[in-house]
């Protein structure tokens, strides 16, 4: 019965996600169209001849009325077709897909680590520590939550990478995608990742520190709310120690709202994380996106926004399924 329900739940979520991607890309179309200074073709090759421009405009449907331009754009988005000329072999989507594993490596590790550490550390410290420790935890996490991540990234990079040489900088030059599919691509990715691991330490530390704050604060908040509940009184009346009551009874029930909040936190981690990628020169989607934003290269911008949205929606669906699995109150 439950498996049957899960498939319906998943189908609903996927339809939701597709609608959301559609809306996101529509807004992107609106924004890109309202940027002054000519259309995409004028921006990408301003000194091309009239014939070339006409060909490009035909490919992207830019010579048609606006609603048809929109339809062509949407078709291109959903068919993953980001060619700028007919005979282009490596499109922006290929390039971004090549960098996708590195982004996933950084963000995935950061998200999982910050939640695992946040939950375990939070339960330990909040239930076994004293009052003073609790205040210190909430104070530190408020500070980390309040200060924008890029300030940390900037100063940490300045002092720990350049000043004292504690962490190595990213010194791996990736080759980029090949025109023809090669079977050695996986081993190439693995070798690159292995070479990038030492440089991943500092951005990972910053992302984890920033991502840790929200679970810790929320855990403390929900634990405070739950302390008034009757089941705490029952547990205390049974003669359990205060630490046992806190860690085994209160903290565990406070974890559930933490899970449902994770999907929003993921959005913050990713939108803060792409800037950290840019600052640390991490070969990922964020760096590519900012490089493209700088010169307004539309195909890469669209592809990057599309990919980031997909990543976020997929991880949100994962979190929702996990939440439904863990929380008996959530009906599928």
């Amino acid at each position, binding site marked *: 019965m439950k498996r049957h329900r899960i498939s319906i739940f998943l189908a609903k979520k996927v339809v939701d996600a597709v609608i959301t991607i559609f809306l996101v890309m529509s807004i992107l179309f609106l924004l890109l169209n309202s940027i002054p200074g000519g259309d995409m073709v004028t921006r990408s090759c301003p000194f091309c001849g009239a014939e070339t421009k006409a060909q490009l405009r035909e490919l992207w449907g830019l010579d048609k009325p606006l609603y048809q331009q929109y339809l062509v754009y949407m078709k291109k988005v959903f068919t993953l077709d980001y060619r700028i000329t007919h005979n282009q072999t490596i499109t922006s989507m290929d390039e971004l897909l090549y960098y996708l594993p590195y982004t996933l490596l950084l963000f995935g590790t950061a998200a999982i680590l910050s939640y695992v550490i946040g939950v375990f550390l939070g339960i330990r410290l909040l239930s076994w520590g004293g009052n003073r420790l609790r205040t210190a935890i909430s104070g530190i996490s408020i500070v980390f939550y309040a200060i924008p991540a890029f300030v940390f990234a900037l100063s940490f990079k300045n002092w720990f990478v350049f000043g004292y040489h504690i962490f190595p900088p990213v010194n791996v030059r990736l080759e980029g995608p090949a025109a023809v599919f090669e079977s050695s691509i996986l081993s190439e990715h693995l070798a690159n990742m292995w070479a990038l691991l030492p440089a991943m330490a500092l951005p990972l530390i910053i992302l984890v520190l920033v991502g840790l704050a929200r679970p810790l604060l929320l855990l403390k908040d929900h634990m405070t709310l739950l302390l008034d509940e009757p089941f705490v009184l029952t547990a205390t009346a049974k003669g359990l120690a205060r630490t046992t009551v806190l860690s085994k009874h209160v903290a565990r029930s406070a974890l559930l709202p933490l899970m449902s909040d994770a999907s929003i936190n993921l959005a913050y981690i990713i939108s803060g994380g792409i800037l950290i990628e840019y600052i640390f020169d991490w070969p990922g989607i964020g760096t590519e996106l900012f490089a493209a*934003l700088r010169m307004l290269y539309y195909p890469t911008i669209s592809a990057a926004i599309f990919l980031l949205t997909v990543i976020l929606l997929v991880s949100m669906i994962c979190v929702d399924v996990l939440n439904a699995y863990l929380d008996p109150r959530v009906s599928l």
Partner: protein
Amino acid sequence: MIPHGGSEERCTLCSEKMKDRTDSLYCGYCHAVFHRSCIIEHFYYNRFCPACKKKLSFIDMRYGSPPKPRLEKPLRDVQYELVNPEEYIPRRVRKPQWPVREEVPLFRITPGRAAYGYKPRRGILTRVHGFVFAKPEETTGILGRFRHNRKGMAGVYMLLAAVFVAILAPSLILYDPVSYMVEDETYISHPPTWQYPMGTDVFGRDIYSQTIWGFRSALTIALPSAFLIGVIGTVVGLVSGYYSGSVDAVLQRVSLTFLVWPSVPFVALIVFSWGGSMANFAVILGVAFTLWPTSARAIRAEVKSLKSRLFIESAKVSGASSRRVIFRHILPNVVHITFLYITIAVASALALEATFNFLGLSSPAVITWGQMLSFTYHAASARFGVGGGMAWWTIVPPALAIAGTVLSFFLISTGLRESMRVSSVKF
């Protein structure tokens, strides 16, 4: 033991009556009463109590008259208490407690960080914590409890300081933050001196003046965008929580869309497309667009729980239109959540504004903290390699200013959240 003389106490040494209460001392062991002058004279020569001959000194004597003895009455003599409530004599002699528990003191005097109901240690100097008008636990209303919240009030004071600095900025700065550049080349990118209290940046501009001026631009961006966030979030949350069904579904999708849009590129594209002359407005709009979904979701959840309450039902039954129900009956009950999310939104808006100022998306003629960081970052990148070799005095003041301002709003929001719920347990 020396018998008590009732109300007419006499000095054990000179057998004279006591004049007043301050004049008398008594022995803590035998409860014999003495004149102050008599007992001082006695202890000048001796080291024992004149009545019970116990080895004592003057400091063991107690002031006042001895406690009245317990009358030999049977236990649970309810009759006695009921008949003569005026002459009720306590069974046990209790140690006097100060301040009296039933009264609210003018000052809260605590040893260290103890809670309100405490037992002061004798003779230890205690701290005075300002005026106390009522017990914080019994204070009614969110604002009343907020007044006693340390975090929240700290945030308010920090915010007030920031606003004062922003208002007084023209008289606080030492040099023009935008156009002034040092003429002496040795003072370009110079560490703090008396002449330039926070040093100078790569162009030779005074960092202190820039930091002070940054308060203005930060607050003028953050406050309007937070207001917009509050308005959009509240309206969308109210509508989508009240009308479940298709309206709710559409609004939920829209809010999910804005939630998953990566915020920095979104604001960047808005600034690119509507930037130029109204760059500031574009920034405000962009920040508001990216941050409203969280507040809308929270308000929607609250409205959903309010919708099934009786007063909404009665309003509907009495013929109120749904617009009236939403704005007259539900809105006042969720407005505190709006304020909470506005304060959180200001913090996020400040951080976001700093972020894309760092990316160089706003006018270089407007000094902001993010822009200061951007200048030092890119100048150092050009000179020493990407992101390296930045001078500490170019990073620390703007970073601290961002941190402080964001933190003030965040503390206010924490205080508000803590004072919104009435919890008997301190954690």
